[in-house]
């Protein structure tokens, strides 16, 4: 490689690293405890709660919905999700004419209809997640951090290009401890970069993809989802809707073997004006991160479509576990933490 070429790549490597390094340091510091969010919140937020009737028959989803909406007259249902560890159904409702983004979230004990305590994150972990995700700046913050992630990937690629010229006469792992500090630190830098490249590249690329979550989902809704429901016109009012239980059963029949994740009601962000969108995910380590919605006609209860996720949404779904490292048990999490340590 010619000297001029090496100089150019060195410039790319230096500046892409320098521009992003402060933000990457912040991401490492906040990301480290986030790897253990589940464990930390288990310790800090342990809540003893028992369902109202352990052996009793559970309320139907329609009954749970009726109970939830009776506590907020005038509101309409937006989402319904299902607690994986407790017999609790979470109903999110919204005032039709209220300010955007203001919801009421009600965990309902499915055995009794009584309110259940919400499972919320610890304030410190919520703070760290917000800082890590978007610097408390919403979408602009996410996109900015995505740009820093791109800088990181550029630094990694340029580092690989520069590795050979700088290591062409040195065996792998050489650290010239007797030389000047600058030489010694360069050797440490090259060694660390060479051994951690795969992990840093995966975390960096998936981090960039995660920052695009909002535009990806918006694009999916505006294209693939809209195509599926183009034939439907008038919205379905709450009083005209088919049974929610029947809708969920119909969806489950269309997607056997998948696990119910949540329901988006007509008019909400993740559905259309005419459908219940019943979201499922798989039960294998890979497919548990893949979401598939079944669209049920809210008026008739008939299956309208099963919307298989396009490649870009699947990529987003896979980027989340690969970025946070919380999918392979405690051993993988510990390694993630050791590799994250700045």
């Amino acid at each position, binding site marked *: 490689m010619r000297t001029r070429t090496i100089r150019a790549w060195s410039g790319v490597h230096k500046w892409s690293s320098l521009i992003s390094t402060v933000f990457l340091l912040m991401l490492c510091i906040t990301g480290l405890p986030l790897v253990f969010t589940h464990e930390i919140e288990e310790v800090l937020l342990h809540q003893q709660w028992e369902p109202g009737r352990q052996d009793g028959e559970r309320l139907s989803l329609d009954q749970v919905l009726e109970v939830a909406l009776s506590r907020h007259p005038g509101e309409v249902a937006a989402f319904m999700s299902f607690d994986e560890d407790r017999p609790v159904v979470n109903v999110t409702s919204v005032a039709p004419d209220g300010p955007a983004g203001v919801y009421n979230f009600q965990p309902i004990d499915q055995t009794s209809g009584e309110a259940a305590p919400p499972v919320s994150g610890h304030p410190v972990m919520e703070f760290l997640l917000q800082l890590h995700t978007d610097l408390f700046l919403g979408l602009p913050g996410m996109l900015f951090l995505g740009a820093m992630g791109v800088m990181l990937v550029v630094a990694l690629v340029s580092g690989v290009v520069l590795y050979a010229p700088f290591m062409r006469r040195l*065996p792998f792992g050489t650290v010239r401890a007797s030389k000047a500090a600058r030489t010694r630190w360069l050797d440490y830098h090259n060694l660390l970069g060479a051994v951690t*490249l795969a992990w840093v590249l995966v975390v960096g690329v998936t981090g960039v993809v995660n920052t695009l979550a909002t535009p990806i989902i918006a694009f999916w809704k505006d294209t693939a989802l809209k195509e599926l429901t183009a034939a439907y016109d008038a919205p379905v009012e709450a009083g005209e809707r088919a049974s929610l239980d029947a809708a969920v059963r119909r969806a489950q029949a269309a997607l056997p073997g998948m696990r119910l994740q949540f329901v988006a009601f007509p008019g909400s962000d993740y559905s259309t004006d005419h459908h219940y969108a019943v979201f499922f995910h798989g039960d294998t380590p890979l497919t548990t991160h893949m979401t598939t919605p079944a669209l049920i006609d809210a008026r008739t209860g008939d299956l309208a479509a099963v919307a298989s996720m396009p490649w870009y949404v699947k990529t987003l779904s896979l980027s989340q576990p690969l970025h946070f490292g919380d999918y392979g048990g405690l051993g993988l999490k510990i390694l993630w933490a050791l590799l994250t340590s700045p």
Partner: protein
Amino acid sequence: MSRKDLGFLSIFGVPIILFVLSLTGLIGALLQDGLWDWVGAVLLGTTLLALATTLIFRKR
């Protein structure tokens, strides 16, 4: 390159092996559960093992 320069495999051999092992561990643990959680962690751990081994046993 001069005659003193190392060949491609001498320069990139170990990094490539570590890259493949790490990536296999990361993806394997995502695709499979149970035993692969530990296999994945071990494979990813080869990076830290290589780092520690190199630093401890390097010529001074």
